């Protein structure tokens, strides 16, 4: 699972969960890919993400110091170098082993072999 996906996921489907976002993320193992940077595609993706969730994801792979604490005003005003950092986080980091955790109920969804499992039953306590 590329870190981008984490940004789109929530645990609102669980009973008694109202926001369920962002999911907490524990990364036990990840691989770094080298996927070609494309300025336009990166901006399209950044336009859709929630910055607070990206900060959670960056922290999970110990890279929070690489991105600004505040969301940049306009993505298309960033230089290629600045955008590359975001591209790297969203597209190059592939989580292999870890956990997604509901921020409200603390329900754990395991990530194994790069695939998160959102079906666990104790999700529905």
């Amino acid at each position, binding site marked *: 699972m590329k870190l981008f*996906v984490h*940004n*789109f996921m929530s645990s609102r489907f669980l009973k008694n969960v109202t926001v369920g*976002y962002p999911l907490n993320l524990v990364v036990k193992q990840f691989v770094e890919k080298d996927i070609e940077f494309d300025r336009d595609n990166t901006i399209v993706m950044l336009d859709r*993400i929630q910055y607070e969730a990206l900060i959670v994801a960056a922290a999970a792979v110990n890279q929070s110091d690489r991105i600004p604490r505040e969301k940049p005003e306009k993505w298309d005003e960033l230089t290629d170098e600045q955008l590359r950092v975001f591209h790297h986080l969203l597209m190059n980091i592939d989580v292999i082993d870890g956990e997604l955790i509901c921020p409200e109920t603390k329900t754990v969804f395991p990530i194994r072999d790069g695939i998160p499992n959102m079906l666990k039953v104790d999700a529905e306590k």
Partner: protein
Amino acid sequence: MLPVLVIFSQSHVDFRIAEFEAICSMFSIKVDLSEKLNTTDHMFIVNFESHLEVRKLLSRSILVKYAIELSIEAESYDIMYEQIDNKPEIIEKFDKLEESFAIRFFAIGRKKKLDSIERIKAFLDVVPFNKAPICLKSPKNELFLVEEYENPSDEAPKKVYFGKLIGEGRAELKTKYNLRDRCYIGNTTMDPELSFIQSNLAMISPGDIVLDPFVGTGGLILPAAEFGAFVIGTEINYQTARAQGRSSRQGVGQRGESESIKANFEQYKSESQFLGVLIADSSKHGIWSCNAKFDAIVADPPYGVREKARKTVKNKKVDTTEEYVQYQQKEEYDLEAAFCDLLNLSARLLVINGRISFWYPVILENYCAENLPNHPAMDLISNCEQPLTRKTSRRLLSYRKIRDPVNDEACEIQKTGVSHYRSVLFSSAKPN
């Protein structure tokens, strides 16, 4: 104006117009159809604005075989030769010392007893090329002599055409993505040709973010990735998502270690486009956050025939012990409810103007437009049929999101039909 002879594949004719229109719409190609496209003829003269626009069409079309810049259209060879006599520049344009050429012959409407070499020879006897060198492998100018027959038994063609090939469509993709050589396939993996047509109907463009909520082994998102989109899938079946259990290939037994959805992307070198798959129940829309927006959704929901249609339900009685991981029970998903749910999900997750394209099974006997799912925020763009059995077929439905849904707008099916799909399909089955 550039008159182009567009020759279509003779398979999947019901998808032809929809695919052509979707690609033209995707690239804002303005075309003037001198003969309106239909499903019985296989070639048409289409006026384009430029070569570039023809090339854009060819870069995506699975069903267009050839696009030929039309030089001559005539009722017979004699008339064609007469036209060349009157306007020698038609040929002179291609008869240059520094430009090699080849002549190809193509006939439509009659295949038997046509000797293409004879035809080309006869043509060159009357229309000599004096300067241009012949090159059959990679000619600068690939010239086409095309015959169109009214009836397969006719001696003489109804029309003959001559022109230069602009290019071919993307039919090679169905070979590249053939299922025999694909790393990981399932029982219901989509035919590659149709899967690419579906990506076209969903107007998937480079950089798009695309979802398949019933991803299976990834057969519908591989074409999307080939076309440059970033793809995500969800799958309710744990074993399918993890490529465990028995292989769908006959005589293979258990699935191998190397099989996985990701391995399919690696095989076709589109791993960079693959964002991931989740094991999740697509009927639970809350697995997606409020900011989750997709440009397109492609789906082939299970009809409950070769794969079960299922969603999760709350376990009635749960005995969980520490070491025993309990998964949710899954129940059969009413087919019509499943399709309505898919449109509701699309109305929520798509960007405005985003498209969903999905397969919808129908019972031929009582099929009518009222059987189709209808959502106030979604506009039905195309409806193409693939026959399946004597009693059933499936339709590839493509909708465009016209606006965000308001209040509790939801999808409806006016007249029930599909939910009996399974029982109708098996009703004539003889008992053992």
